[in-house]
């Protein structure tokens, strides 16, 4: 573009067309603003608005669901029992009572009366049997949880009896967050899409994949709990990937609950009118998984040295509330948790001693090079990785950190055939699929033929044996199971295949326009909307 500086004759001052056009467009802007009036009003219209940072439903089949849709499903689908993490006990839901035989191989559940599915069909023992048998047969997602079940019997309409091939805590399994839903079976599995076949308080009003207002639920008139008292009529799941936008929606009162907000956005919201910042323990913990098949971490002493060289308090402080001290492998609220385990604490002297013993350390003149990988996009993990880098530098370990996508970077590298091609340390989170601590041991610490989630490549036959026994023990003797889990954790701490970096704290912004919200780590990120009382 060229400009031309030829002089222009000044003309008479008149209201030109250009001025009129600008005035018009300004008026347009003003009129748009005036018709607004956004804010708290939207929050009290009987709709509970849940903000999620990722798309919600990828799998509609309640048998196969194993992902983000967990945030919505418990409002549509119910399980036989529900786990209360605060009391550490199983509570009735679709089953009012249950009992197990003394050998833990026969479990009998009595069903609640007067329950109907959203299809209109009554909840009977036959329906329960059909749903669970279908889930087992599909074998998708977390269906493995029902593994011990060998047959299901229906002595009468309201009674379901499970026969197990080995003792297992079926009351915990039937409380699982995945694969434990009781549903009516449609003619075709495709019918599940965008609809609800459960017994829960809400049914699907609309579902628009990819839309920002992805899922709307509305109350199910025939819900067995009834609609007396104060309840929300609708639930809206809004997909807002941009954290700053989610924060704006919370402060302006357009939403009730934000699933996840980074600390730097939460802090300024503290003390704002109409908002509460809550913090609650989760069943999710952050591990640094060490490559036990590759030098130098194949040497137990080097792993133990790294575990002593990490300053855990500093990590927790830097996480600004996103992490809390780990007491062991099993977080609080679960069987097997203990705060008396002999954890490896920050002890740089001990770390140096161990390294020297193994032939490394500051005096050896050799710098240990270790590759650390973690999944990108999580602020807390990034902070932890960066801090660990400077902490380990103090004992002559140079940490090369790499943030990669999980699916295409971290995981494939962790599964390389040659241990030398894999990372040395991998930061990852783990959480259980049902209110049982066995998940950590079964998936993370048990010997694997083919690499899946045991990304320390850790193998301890004695531990494997205990893992195979503990499920049955849990069913008949919880006290014995408790001490077994404590012992198993001690083994893991001694062998040091992982760094226990901290337990995740859920930090959330919620609106103070309702009461009754309880964080239940057994159902991560779930809001049981029926239990809330709008103000």
């Amino acid at each position: 573009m060229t400009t031309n500086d030829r002089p222009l004759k000044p003309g008479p001052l008149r209201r030109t067309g250009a001025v009129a056009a600008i005035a018009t467009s300004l008026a347009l802007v003003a009129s748009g603003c005036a018709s607004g009036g956004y804010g708290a009003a939207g929050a009290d219209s009987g709709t509970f608005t849940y903000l999620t940072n990722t798309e919600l439903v990828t799998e509609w089949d309640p048998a196969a669901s194993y992902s983000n849709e967990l945030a919505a499903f418990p409002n549509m689908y119910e399980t036989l029992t529900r786990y209360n993490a605060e009391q550490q006990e199983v509570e009735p839901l679709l089953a009012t009572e249950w009992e197990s035989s003394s050998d833990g191989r026969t479990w009998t559940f009595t069903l609640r009366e007067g329950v109907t599915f959203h299809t209109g069909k009554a909840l009977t023992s036959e329906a329960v049997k059909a749903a669970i048998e279908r889930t087992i047969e599909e074998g998708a997602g977390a269906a493995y949880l029902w593994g011990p079940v060998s047959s299901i019997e229906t002595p009468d309409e309201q009674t379901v009896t499970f026969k197990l091939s080995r003792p297992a805590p079926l009351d915990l399994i039937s409380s699982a967050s995945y694969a434990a839903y009781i549903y009516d079976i449609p003619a075709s599995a495709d019918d599940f899409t965008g609809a609800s076949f459960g017994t829960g308080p809400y049914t699907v009003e609309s579902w628009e994949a990819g839309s920002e207002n992805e899922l709307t639920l509305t109350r199910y008139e025939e819900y067995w709990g009834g609609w007396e008292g104060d309840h929300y009529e609708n639930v809206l799941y809004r997909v807002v990937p941009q954290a700053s936008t989610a924060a704006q929606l919370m402060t302006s009162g357009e939403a009730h609950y934000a699933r996840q907000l980074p600390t730097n956005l939460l802090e300024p919201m503290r003390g704002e009118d109409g908002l509460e910042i809550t913090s609650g323990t989760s069943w999710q913990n952050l591990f640094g998984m060490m490559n036990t098949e590759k030098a130098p971490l194949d040497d137990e002493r080097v792993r133990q040295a790294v575990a002593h060289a990490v300053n855990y308090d500093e990590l927790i402080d830097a996480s600004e509330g996103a992490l809390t001290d780990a007491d062991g492998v099993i977080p609080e609220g679960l069987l097997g948790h203990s705060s008396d385990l002999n954890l490896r604490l920050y002890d740089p002297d001990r770390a140096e001693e161990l390294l020297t013993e193994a032939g490394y350390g500051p005096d050896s003149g050799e710098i240990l090079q270790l590759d650390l990988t973690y999944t990108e996009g999580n602020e807390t993990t990034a902070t932890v990785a960066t801090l660990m880098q400077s902490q380990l530098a103090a004992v002559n370990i140079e940490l090369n950190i790499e943030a990669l996508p999980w699916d295409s970077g971290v995981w494939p590298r962790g599964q390389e055939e040659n241990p030398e091609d894999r990372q040395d340390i991998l930061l990852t989170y783990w959480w259980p699929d049902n209110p049982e601590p066995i998940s950590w041991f079964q998936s993370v610490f048990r010997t694997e033929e083919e690499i899946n989630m045991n990304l320390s490549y850790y193998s301890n036959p004695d531990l494997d044996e205990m893992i195979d026994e503990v499920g049955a023990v849990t069913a008949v003797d919880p006290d014995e199971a408790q001490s077994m889990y404590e012992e198993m954790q001690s083994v893991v701490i001694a062998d040091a295949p992982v760094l226990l970096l901290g337990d995740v704290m859920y930090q959330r912004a919620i609106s103070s326009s309702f009461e009754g919200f309880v964080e239940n780590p057994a159902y991560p990120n779930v809001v049981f909307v029926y239990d809330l009382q709008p103000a």
Partner: protein
Amino acid sequence: MIAYTARRLGLSALVALGVVVLTFVIARLVPGDPAAGWAGPRASPEERARVREELGLDRPTHEQIIDYVGGVLRGDWGISVRTHRPVLDDLLSLLPNTLQLVLAGLLIGLLVGVPAGLLAARWHNRLPDVLVRSAAIVGASMPVFWLALLLQTFFAGQLRLLPVAGSWDADMLAQYPLAKVTGLPLVDALVTGNWPMLASVFDHLLLPALVVSAYPVAVIARLVRASVLDTLGETHIQMVRSLGFAERAVLGRFAVRLSWNPVLQLCALIFGYSLVNSFLVEAVFNYPGLGRYAANSATVLDVPAIVGVTLLVALLYIAANLIVDLVHAALDPRIRLR
């Protein structure tokens, strides 16, 4: 004219093919395993191997490209690894929102940019000119995501005059469902007389459209100013002046006419630029368009979706340029001969 159109169409098809091949190869070169994304974060190795075979990921890249191009021609743009839905369905459901945003930005750009350019030319080197030029520099150079955050914080966060994010109120949708006529929500609400929905869509569109319009307003104003100033020295304008036409008519009726051609061409460029620029705006305002989709797809290496978005944007860009060139050629016979 027919020969010219045919030649331009042929060239456009070649460009589109090049885009597909390049995007495909680049997306394949990035290390990663889309099958793992499809099967989920805790899938077993067997499950992933099965998915890899099912998606054809185990076959050589050139075979995959040939298959893909064949599919695109048949309207099969592949299945998204992330959403598990046909990519073309995903894109077509989001495209109207993005088009609406970009076109609204372009419209504001013309409505504000052309008068502002005239104003600046009329009072050349005086206060209006200085103001327009300064505003144009700010408008063209301020990062859109920053402008978006500023407007969002001020108008929605502080004043609460406009909604923070989204494309309409969810409550509204149940009560006043939107009929699909053109696919553009604003137009559909208008033609079906759905006034409450129209207000909701308009309120939600206003801030993002203003942000998207910042760049068009700036460049159009500068182009109009420069081209009018250029023209003013020409003999035919001096002729018009000497005939005693008012200065307003000289500028508004005669001088500005010569800037229509460059403005028209600029619009095609702006359209392409705004398409991509709107991606960041969509992220801030959580506006459900192609940008949000592209960003979400890229983070999980959803190759069919990434290639799909790229191809669609390329096609739109090519189409915009083609239309402008054809209109141009129809108006000005000299172009056809080049």
